[in-house]
């Protein structure tokens, strides 16, 4: 081994603690890159493979009742490659061991042959006999959650008739990778499932013989999607069609896609932060090392080593640190990505997971990691090339200090000399002080930008679950019915109050902007489920007009006073001019609301309701469940109290894990920055501090000079970090919000406090690590040596 390389290894050994602190920060960046890209690509690949193999449709539409002959006309639309017509209905299930009713989405299978689109993949058993009236397949997760196996049976109420259905197999479908019940905000595999059964059985149960109410379309490669949608809409309109939509509005696809987008965004936005901090740390440590080794560098040059050889020597040191960080990051990334991919299969139901370990991810992360270290080293290494051997071998000129405004302030305040030393150190090296401050601030910001989400969710939950939706359950009716049904519901056992509303599919248009949505017609006096304004006050609907959620209003660029074109997409279709009378804040979903009487008047119908919110006497629940399970016209029930509980549990669990992980990562940054700063300050000042010890300063007084500076910078950094965190959180709120939910922007004092305390504690702990070295300063050596 060459001598310089021996020196390299010994330098590593000597600097191990500092190198480790840098390498771990770097490893975080590499790890997040590997995880985000790895999981995103794996999920994307799995998604597209599953979509392709199981022919996931491109366009979806529903109708009330369309004749089967219409299928041929749909196939004629230019750009259409495959058409599948089905019957899709909801049904109440009576499951053994579950007192409350569950809900199923019933999907028909073709009378002959395999489905052409959205093909379910069997995971166990076989597909049902198309001729059988009681054989079904269910989605695997529903079967698992309810301990169903092939041969298990359960009761379902199909259009008022109770049937015993037998499971012939379990499946997973590209249509239901993310499965969420109507009205629900979280998957609930126990209480919501998808049931596939033969067309004939469903058609006879729902009186839809020779007809369909759901259509899926697969496009040719060169199809004009919008044109197909328009044509399809025209064809379905006479049969109660509610406006076709593409994949972007298909619930499962929408959730999966937004998750993938978030992963991608994380992979792009977060790692650079860690790389920048690492580069800065390498710069600091190597800069100091080169200053200390000035005379050695002069000697190397004097004996004939070239500038290139000396530079390469120090670059290798930086690369070593980088390489170590990359390896740790890879190891952590691979194991965590594997765990995370598994975690995703809890929420996303894939029949398989194509785990992609793309070499380029590793190449990119290695280049970024080592590159950051080398870049950090560049400035210091350049300095070595500029040193002439003669100058290098003589000691450096003493640092020049100048009086400035801060000194005057210090003197004016009667600051003692240790404080003056701190002030001068900060003002003499403002760049170093700022970078240390920024490093700590970024770690504070990282914590705030992640942990504030739990604050936001608190607000969301409080608003959605406790302020707006105060009903304990929502019943959805199989068919719209007159208000008289509310009295029937109130007569059910345990129901204390029942309030109805009607949802009608409409297309809202403002100038060139258009959106398909279900508008909710509400009775003015509704008190269980309320539409609230920003101040959480119940919105009073004017007799005419529409109230929009803020996100929908934005999408339509509509303001109060604007008039929208509302095209009703079901029943007696027609166009209506409706004024916007209010815009409300809404966190879950997007919405449009009207007075039910006004809506009915527009539709020229008696007021109808298709869902009923109820409050319940808990003691009479079982009686209510029995009735609901048997009621012919109730298609589903959503228990809001269970949603609240489930949401609470999930949030509590994931908040614990997330908080720990981010507090750990942020602490790593702080330790990396503060420990290295402290070591460098100590190295620069060892002699000064030892002299003070000789002059009679205690260990505490001497430590104060070093730790005081770092803790002061930490105290400055924390509020700056609060500000950065605030901005980052604002950006995250923007990028996370979708039509599914809008994240409210709210950061609690607790979050600020936690981030501040973690940063300060980590900073103090790293400073204390260095303090031990102050206690061991060699006082005798100082008497004799010159730096």
């Amino acid at each position, binding site marked *: 081994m060459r001598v310089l390389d021996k020196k390299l290894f010994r330098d590593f050994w000597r600097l191990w603690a500092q190198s480790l602190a840098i390498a771990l920060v770097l490893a975080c960046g590499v790890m997040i890159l590997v995880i985000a890209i790895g999981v995103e690509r794996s999920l994307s690949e799995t998604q597209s493979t599953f979509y392709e193999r199981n022919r996931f449709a491109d366009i979806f539409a529903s109708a009330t009742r369309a004749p089967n002959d219409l299928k041929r006309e749909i196939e004629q639309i230019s750009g259409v490659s495959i058409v599948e017509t089905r019957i899709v209905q909801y049904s109440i299930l009576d499951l053994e061991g579950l007192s409350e009713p569950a809900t199923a989405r019933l999907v028909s299978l073709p009378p002959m042959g395999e489905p052409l689109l959205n093909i379910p993949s069997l995971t166990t058993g076989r597909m049902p006999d198309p001729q059988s009236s009681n054989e079904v397949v269910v989605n695997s997760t529903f079967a698992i959650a309810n301990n169903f196996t092939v041969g298990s049976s359960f009761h379902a109420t199909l259009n008022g008739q109770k049937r015993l259905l037998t499971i012939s197999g379990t499946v997973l479908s590209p249509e239901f990778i993310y499965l969420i019940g109507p009205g629900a905000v979280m998957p609930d595999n126990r209480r919501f499932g998808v049931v596939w059964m033969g067309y004939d059985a469903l058609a006879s149960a729902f009186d839809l013989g020779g007809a369909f109410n759901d259509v899926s379309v697969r496009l040719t490669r060169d199809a004009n999607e919008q044109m197909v949608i328009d044509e399809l809409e025209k064809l379905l309109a006479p049969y109660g069609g509610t406006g076709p939509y593409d994949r972007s509005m298909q619930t499962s696809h929408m959730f999966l896609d937004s998750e993938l987008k978030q992963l991608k965004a994380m992979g792009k936005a977060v790692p650079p932060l860690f790389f920048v901090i690492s580069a800065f740390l390498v710069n600091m440590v190597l800069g100091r090392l080169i200053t200390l080794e000035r005379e050695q560098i002069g000697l190397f040059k004097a004996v004939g080593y070239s500038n290139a050889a000396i530079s390469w020597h120090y670059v290798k040191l930086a690369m070593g640190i980088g390489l170590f960080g990359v390896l740790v990051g890879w190891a952590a990334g691979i194991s965590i990505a594997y765990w995370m991919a598994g975690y995703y299969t809890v929420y996303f139901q894939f029949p398989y997971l194509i785990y992609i370990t793309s070499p380029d991810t590793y190449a990119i992360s290695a280049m970024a990691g080592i590159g950051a270290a080398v870049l950090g080293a560049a400035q210091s290494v350049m300095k070595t090339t500029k040193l002439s051997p003669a100058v290098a071998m003589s000691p450096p000129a003493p640092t020049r200090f100048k*009086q400035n405004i801060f000194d005057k302030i210090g003197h004016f305040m009667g600051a003692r*000399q240790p404080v003056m030393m701190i002030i001068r150190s900060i003002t003499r090296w403002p760049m170093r002080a700022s970078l240390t401050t920024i490093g700590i601030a970024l770690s504070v910001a990282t914590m705030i930008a992640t942990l504030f989400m739990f604050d936001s969710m608190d607000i969301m939950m409080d608003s959605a679950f406790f302020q707006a939706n105060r009903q304990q359950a929502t019943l959805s009716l199989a068919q719209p019915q007159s208000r008289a049904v509310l009295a029937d519901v109130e007569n059910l056992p345990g129901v204390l109050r029942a309030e109805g509303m009607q949802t009608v599919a409409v297309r809202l248009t403002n100038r060139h902007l258009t959106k398909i949505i279900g508008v909710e017609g509400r009775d003015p006096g509704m008190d269980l489920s309320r539409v609230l304004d920003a101040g959480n006050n119940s919105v009073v609907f004017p007799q005419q007009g529409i109230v929009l959620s803020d996100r929908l209003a934005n999408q339509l660029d509509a303001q109060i006073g604007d008039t929208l074109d509302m095209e009703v997409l079901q029943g007696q279709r027609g166009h209506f001019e409706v004024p916007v009378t209010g815009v409300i804040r809404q966190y879950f979903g997007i919405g449009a609301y009207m007075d039910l009487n006004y809506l009915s008047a527009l539709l020229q119908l008696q007021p109808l309701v298709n869902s009923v919110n109820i409050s319940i006497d808990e003691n009479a629940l079982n009686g209510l469940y029995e009735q609901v399970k048997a009621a012919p016209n109730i298609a589903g029930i959503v228990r809001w109290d269970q949603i609240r509980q489930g949401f609470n549990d999930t949030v509590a669990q994931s908040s614990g894990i997330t908080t720990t992980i981010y507090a750990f990562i942020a602490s790593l940054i702080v330790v990396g920055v503060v420990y290295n700063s402290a070591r460098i300050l100590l190295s620069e000042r060892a002699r000064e501090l030892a*002299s003070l010890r000789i*002059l*009679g300063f*205690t260990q505490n007084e001497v430590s104060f000079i070093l730790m005081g500076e770092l803790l002061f910078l930490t105290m400055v950094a924390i509020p700056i970090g609060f500000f950065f965190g605030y901005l980052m959180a604002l950006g995250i709120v923007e990028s996370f919000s979708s039509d599914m939910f809008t994240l409210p922007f709210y950061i609690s004092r607790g979050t600020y406090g936690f981030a501040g305390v973690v940063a300060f504690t980590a900073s103090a702990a790293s400073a204390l690590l260095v303090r031990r070295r102050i206690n061991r300063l060699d006082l005798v050596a*100082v008497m004799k040596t010159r730096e």
Partner: protein
Amino acid sequence: MSQPVFHTDEVTKVYNTGDVQVFALRGVNLDIYASEMTVLLGPSGSGKSTLLNILGGLDDATEGSAFFKGMELTAMSERQLTTYRRDHVGFVFQFYNLVPSLTARENVALVTEISPDPMLPEEALAMVGLENRIDHFPAELSGGEQQRVAIARAIAKRPEVLLCDEPTGALDSKTGVVVLEALSRINSELGTSTVVITHNAAIQNMAHRVIFFADGQISEVKVNKTRLLPHQIEW
């Protein structure tokens, strides 16, 4: 002669470097008296610095004891030694050891702020003839000026003893003399017992007593009948 300020009793110091034992001091017995100016003279490695470090509370003895005004230094804890240095001892180093980020006045104030009965920093600087340079940073001062700031810093607490390790070692003869004048003036005006280590034989002529070191032992003690003034010394 007055009471001894320092008294040592068979002080021995052994350094273990690997397998080899190095005897830095071999049973040194010595008294240093109040208001006395003592020069410790001897070649490198003769043990004079080791003795100074033990007297200054920076190092401990392997065997034997050292006393300051009857208090046994060799039995003190680290904390007690710190207090001892803080309240009773002034140090002057060969390489000045000023804090570069503090001005001359502030370097002196560093010590006066933690001393029970200090003089004003300006007063201490005036005693070494630097009253016009008080707001300069070390980088703006010559070597001799820096050393005089260091002396001002050492005496500003009115120490009972002033320990100087090669105070002129890094200076040319002309500047060195100015520094010695400062030391001599403090010794005579404040009555501070002053111990100066040097291997510059010329300096011995300004001392009351000269103690010669060789091989970790005192080889000779010489009392000067007549002392030279610093400006009469040349090297």
